[in-house]
């Protein structure tokens, strides 16, 4: 039995978890999510990219509690945030708890979401406020 990320090319299920972006070797642009096609800055094909690890840590740029959702998961209400990662890129993600505010420092952690047929635990990334 192992632990696997829901989106293995976006997330390494380590402790602490690592967010995976890309870096363009031609123009040094660092981006998230990692792109399979090409560089928005210089037009290089994705074959010119290297995988780029990003710490799942940053500060909240914007936050919203979602009251209505078109799917059963995540159950409402839940909180989403725009997070300026310490490594540069900006991500949007679910934040657990109700204490996130603009400017809060947050860190990523893994939550079990599901189990596959052979018992592997599928995990996904959440953020939480660090004091």
């Amino acid at each position, binding site marked *: 039995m192992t632990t696997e990320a829901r*989106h293995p*090319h*976006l*997330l390494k299920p380590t402790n602490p978890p690592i*967010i995976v972006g890309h870096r363009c070797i031609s123009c040094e642009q660092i981006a998230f*999510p990692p*792109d*399979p096609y090409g560089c*928005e*800055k210089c037009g290089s094909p994705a074959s010119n990219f290297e995988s780029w690890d990003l710490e799942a840590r940053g500060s909240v*740029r*914007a*936050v*919203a*509690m*979602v*009251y*209505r*959702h*078109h*799917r059963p998961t*995540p159950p409402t209400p*839940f909180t*989403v*945030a*725009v997070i*300026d990662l310490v490594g*540069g*890129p*900006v*991500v*949007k*993600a*679910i934040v657990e708890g109700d204490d996130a505010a*603009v*400017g809060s420092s947050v860190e990523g952690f893994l939550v079990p979401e599901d189990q596959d047929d052979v018992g592997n635990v599928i995990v996904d*990334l959440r953020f939480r406020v660090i004091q």
Partner: protein
Amino acid sequence: MNAPGFLSTRPVFVVGIGLHRYQRRSDETYVSLGLTAVREALVDAGVDWTDIDAAYTGTALLGMGASRIMLSRLGATGIPMTQVENASASGSSSVAQACLEVASGRSDVVVALGVDKPRGGLGAAPGEAGIANLEAGSIVPFTHFALLASEYMHLHAVTDEQVAKVAVKNHRNGSQNPFAQRQKIRTLDEVLAEPISGSLTRLQCCPVGEGAAAVIIASEDGINRLGVDRSRAMQVVASATKTEGLYAEGVGIDAALTAETGAAAFHEAGLGPSDLDVLEVHDAFAIEELLYAEALGLCKPGEAASRIESGDFDIGGSCAFSPSGGLLAMGHPIGPTGVGQVVEVVRQLRNEAGSRQQPNARVGMAHMVGIGAVCVVHILRKP
């Protein structure tokens, strides 16, 4: 790139306008919706369908081949017909294509219409691009804008109530518009009820229903040949389209793209923000009106909320924002929306807007953004 002045080399005018009321999804077919708007525009212009040289249909949801089965019921004249899809700006882009066709000299009289009926979802292509993201599925458009509202309100110390006042104003304007989907005056308390996401409530989110809008675009040659009433012909002095560039991390793309596209339109028209008397913006969510007022240069960053509160953006203020009711009250049936904005601007410039007339309106702008992101801006002027 936008060739500066292509609309001044051969001037183009809106000579006819027509609408089918925006409404909740009904059993009425899109053919019936579209024909209602086009017939009204033909009557308004005083021209016959046989005078029309070409047609552009803005639609995002109907699927392929929508135009001929609809427009041939005005007479199967065999004219070129083209469908235009540009997300929420589909109708705006059909107007842009019609203007380009007339300005090029290829045609003298062209109809641009927008028509749509809502389906289960938007069917947007970016979701099929194979680019997964962390928040997949949890951030839909209203939450995208709720997050922009959070950032803006924090940065400028703006309250929920101040943002909600955008919706109070636009619902009030919509109550005076017989073509609006929402025609009720709403109090601040009513607008603040029923939270959806972040500070956004139900009445701060646009309804996506069905409807149709049409404009007839003509050259001076066309106006003269067909004996169109020149006093009701409003000139299109700018038509600008841009897509999202590569902005700094975290920059709000909708406002940045609006600033660039608005600047291109002002440059083309030789006008500036202080020249605008009416402005129909993409106010799909209340926060957007504040963001775009600032991005388009109508006020300084952080000032828009106080300008709304002072009544400066009301009908009768320095620039009437969304006098039609905007997307929030008139509605956002997708394909028709951008054409309907031009209809409202023309009505205002003609001084035919009745109880929602902006006094002495001479210059107006129509602005849409769409998924992609794309932005289309037109400026019209009373000659």
